[in-house]
């Protein structure tokens, strides 16, 4: 049966989970004016990549990318799945570390970092241990509980917007293409798409609906960057570490008994992220189980311990930023090669099929 609902929810949640943290900062620092250009470029690339990926996957109904690559041979799997697995694990590490740091900055200043990371990893392991089908279902529950909160907070963040900051609209400056932060901004685009290739045996989905949901998410990319810009102006926003979070902090809602909306916003996003981390971990385990069949039942434990240890070993924020950049490179590789290779493999298998039938 068509389970597009689950896949779409997962897609929306994971992208909403990323886009409000580092993405606005990256976009704002990538250019001085006309920020919509880098955002638009990013969105178009994102759309193209997802389209290619799903087009490629549609040639293999009911198969996930592990099966597709392992059919294509060892070299293909090593070339494409290896970096993907590395990227997934790296991403988990960076995300856990970075978001635990944000937690301590924003509201848990007395709690040690390792304790927060331990909880996050614990929940992540628990989610991952439930397996693919359950993860998508958890997504629905979490969306029902937290998505309304996020949406309310999101719309309340417009409170201090000054629309004059929108100008100048036009720009001839394309120097953002040379800036590192532009490529780092693909964090928000490139993080979530891989799971579409893992959903298949459990959930089949219509790619048209996923594309529609991509289109629905795109305005949020624009607004995530533009709300801080419109509130503070580029000059101020550029100096902030998490511009969107700071914007949120400046919002004051009269009828709410809570003073800090940021916290609820952050926490709801954190729920999305924990879910997404669980999904990523599950994907990593799927890959490692397929290619390292030894110790079948210990993969989850082993990978989690590695992740926890690496997280503990990162001493300070600079290291996180360095890791962030390394992963950005890896991401661009995965972002480009995986969808294209899947499409090519799909076209090849289709060609074979036609030849056979002829």
């Amino acid at each position, binding site marked *: 049966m068509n389970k597009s609902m689950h896949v779409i929810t997962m897609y929306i949640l994971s992208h909403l989970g990323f886009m409000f943290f580092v993405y606005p900062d990256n976009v704002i620092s990538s250019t001085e004016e006309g920020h919509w250009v880098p955002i638009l470029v990013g969105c178009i690339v994102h759309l193209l990549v997802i389209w290619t990926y799903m087009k490629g996957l549609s040639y293999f109904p009911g198969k996930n990318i592990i099966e597709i690559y392992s059919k294509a041979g060892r070299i293909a799997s090593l070339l494409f799945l290896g970096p993907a697995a590395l990227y997934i694990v790296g991403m988990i590490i960076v995300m856990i570390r970075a978001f635990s740091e944000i937690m301590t900055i924003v509201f848990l200043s007395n709690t040690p970092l390792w304790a927060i990371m331990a*909880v996050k990893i614990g929940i992540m392991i628990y989610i991952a241990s*439930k397996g693919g089908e*359950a993860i998508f279902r958890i997504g629905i529950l979490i969306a029902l509980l937290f998505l309304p909160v996020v949406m309310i907070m999101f719309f309340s963040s417009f409170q201090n917007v000054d629309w004059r900051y929108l100008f100048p609209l036009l720009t001839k400056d394309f120097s953002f293409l040379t800036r590192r932060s532009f490529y780092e901004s693909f964090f928000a685009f490139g993080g979530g798409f891989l799971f579409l290739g893992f959903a298949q045996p459990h959930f089949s989905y219509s790619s048209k609906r996923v594309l529609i949901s991509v289109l629905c998410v795109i305005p949020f990319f624009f607004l995530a960057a533009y709300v801080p810009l419109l509130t503070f102006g580029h000059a101020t926003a550029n100096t902030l570490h998490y511009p969107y979070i700071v914007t949120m902090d400046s919002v004051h809602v009269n009828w709410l008994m*809570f003073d800090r909306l940021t*916290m609820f916003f952050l926490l709801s996003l954190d729920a999305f992220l924990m879910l997404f981390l669980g999904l990523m971990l599950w994907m990593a385990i799927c890959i490692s189980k397929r290619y390292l069949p030894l110790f079948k039942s210990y993969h989850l434990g082993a990978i989690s311990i590695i992740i926890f240890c690496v997280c503990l070993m990162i001493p300070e924020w600079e290291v996180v930023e360095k890791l962030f950049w390394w992963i950005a490179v890896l991401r661009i590789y995965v972002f480009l090669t995986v969808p294209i290779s899947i499409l090519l493999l799909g076209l090849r298998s289709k060609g074979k099929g036609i030849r056979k039938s002829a």
Partner: protein
Amino acid sequence: MVPFLQEMKTRLGDNDDFIVQRVFLLDSPVILMGFKSMLDFVQTKSNLLEYIEQSFPEGKTIDEVIKQLSNSGTIGIEEAISAITAGNLLIYDEKTKQRAIVNPVSRLLTRSIESPTTENILHGGISSFNEDIDTNIGMMRKQFNSSHLETKLYSCGSMQKSRLAVLYIKDQIDMKLVKQVVSKIESNLDKELNHTQDVSKMMGFYSKELIPKFNTTELPQEAVNALRKGRIVLFLDRLPFALVLPSLLWDMFIHDNDKNLPPPITVALRMLRLLGVLVTLIMPGLYVALVSVNPEVLRIELALSIAQSREGVPYPAFIEIVLMLIVLEMTLEASVRLPASIGPTVTMVGGIILGQAVVTAQLVSNLLIIILAVTTIANSTVVGVQNSLAIRFFKYVIVVLASIFGVFGIVSAVVFVCAYLAGVNTFGISYLYIPRTEKVGGNHE
């Protein structure tokens, strides 16, 4: 003495309520056997005589009558004993050694159909199941008058026999589910069944699950509604409720009787229950988190007034709330245990003495009492007492995490609870499955 009679007497003769009586039927002596505690001997005898007089033509011998009565072949010792222990009457002809099992006039050992004791109905049929499995199945048939309702009966247990019934609607159900259930039952027929735990062991369910795999209901209307949605209903003899398989999360919120109200009200009521569950889960945790870990989230005025109400309370919020929650759980448990005439005492002691005095003595804060009251009330909005138990349990997970990590702990715990619920499944049907059409299981979501 005849061997059969001898054997029967040695096997059952130690029971003082076992009766062996020689009577004359159609002028020839026969022996009647049965438990006088289970059947009305005098009535049975006179009915039997009347029946024979009316149903058989003149001149028939007792031999033929018994043959007619026992439509099965020869009855062995084991069969005879189990028939007698089930409350039947055995007729034995000494001369021809013929035996017949007869349905007697039994003593009234089951209560009549009453209104439910654990599920109150505001607006709907109020007859509920009782301990007699045949009555229960009959009520189901009365409620769902159709030839599509299928019933399978099993007799389980080796030492103690108990009957188990499986009901489903032929066209609504996924036959794969029925096959799985039936094969589990048939391969475990020798297991003794006393409780739902035994049934779930029979089905091979993981026993450490917090969420029951059966939704239990006392109401025929609910049970039939479940059947209509393509679920299986099990009845175990002597259990006054139906076991609906698989149990779903939405059983907590959805009551079939809601549909006797206008649709917007139905939706509103269901949302209210959903809210009740959320409040139960989150409120105590939120209190602990806001008081002890993240007070800065609150408006300053509110934070101050909370701090004021906690003035003089000698221990941390976590201890405070856990203490009071446990007292509250005990009150709930006590009010179940106590007879109805003493019940109000608990209410009074709990409500007035604990609630008022504990605050006056500055052992807990005013606000906490409010939170506890809200939690308890909210917890009771759930449909079915058995469904509220898991929620009550999860509440503590959230409180513990909230006391360590504040609001972040609450969110983590809620995600954990979501993950737990999403992971539960019964025969491949997820606990979160929503029966959209009138069919469940076909698509094993």
